């Protein structure tokens, strides 16, 4: 199987090299991979779902306190971060597109762009965390809140750090996956016959984006109209 390294397009053979021994065909293997990844994403829905459930209950119980606390979030940074992740989803989709067409250079470019955008997101998040901690908004002994809503606000921030922290952990894992993909792409491993790992990572990355799509309004945009 020749990798046309110098040329623009890589044709991976549709045959034995990527076909694992226990599968009858590439189609069956691809089916299994897709179903497997989607099932994994369903587990992630339930995983984050537990935190969203806690959030829903407490927001319903303490709507005023949650609205008050939400006003301490930086809407600008939150909106920018949302846009950053949406951009990264575009570059990821384009990476999958390039991989399936065997276009090695664009694939590497889009993967790198996705990583840069992901890193930007994490950087902005870190900046926000630092600000919150400085403003005594991290729950626990150092928590200090002006106004009557201190207790529900501490609940809000407990959930905020747990949910965005878990989300950030998922982004870091995604970053690791993208690194592996970039290394493999450079070696010309993905092409017209086989680009499954890129597609599967793409599904994961889009899912992490979707979680943020819900986190953003729920954490940053409550009670904005009150002031």
């Amino acid at each position, binding site marked *: 199987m020749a990798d046309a390294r110098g040329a623009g397009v890589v044709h991976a053979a549709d045959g034995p090299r990527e076909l694992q021994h226990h599968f009858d065909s590439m*189609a069956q293997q691809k089916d299994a991979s897709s*179903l497997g990844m989607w099932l994994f*994403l369903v587990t992630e829905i339930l995983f984050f779902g537990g935190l969203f459930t806690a959030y829903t209950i407490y927001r319903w119980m303490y709507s005023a306190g949650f609205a008050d606390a939400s006003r301490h979030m930086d809407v600008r940074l939150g*909106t920018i971060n949302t846009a950053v992740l949406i951009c990264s989803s575009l570059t990821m989709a384009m990476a999958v597109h390039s991989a399936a067409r065997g276009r090695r250079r664009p694939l590497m470019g889009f993967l790198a762009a996705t990583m840069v955008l992901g890193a930007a997101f994490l950087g902005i998040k870190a900046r926000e965390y630092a600000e919150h901690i400085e403003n005594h908004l991290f729950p626990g002994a150092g928590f200090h809140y002006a106004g009557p809503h201190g207790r529900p606000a501490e609940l809000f921030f407990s959930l905020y750090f747990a949910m965005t922290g878990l989300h950030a952990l998922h982004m870091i894992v995604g970053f690791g996956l993208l690194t592996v993909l970039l290394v493999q792409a450079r070696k010309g491993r993905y092409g017209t016959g086989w680009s499954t790992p890129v597609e599967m990572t793409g599904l994961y990355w889009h899912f992490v984006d979707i979680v943020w799509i819900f986190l953003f309004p729920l954490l940053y945009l409550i009670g904005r109209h009150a002031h």
Partner: protein
Amino acid sequence: MPVTGQSETHEHVVSPGSYVAVFLALLVLTATTTAVAFVDLGPWNTVVALVIAFIKAALVVLIFMHIRWSSRMMKLVIVGGLFWLLILMGLTFSDFASRGWLPIYN
């Protein structure tokens, strides 16, 4: 060849143009949701925010994640997962919502 649930009904080619269109729609929706948050709609603020979020999520799932061109099986898997989350949220919420109904809780 075993009869299996095909993940994609056929190898569908999605043009980069579609991706860019979805991308722009997502940005517009993001700007919208932030802007609307500053307008007082009373209880409807939450509804609007969630509806926009669902539309954004749907765009990502259907186009970026290719579900629009996938088999019924895959669609069922996603719907199933969401439905299960609704069971968790719904039944749990029913407890908290109905606690005040009996006067003994004074």
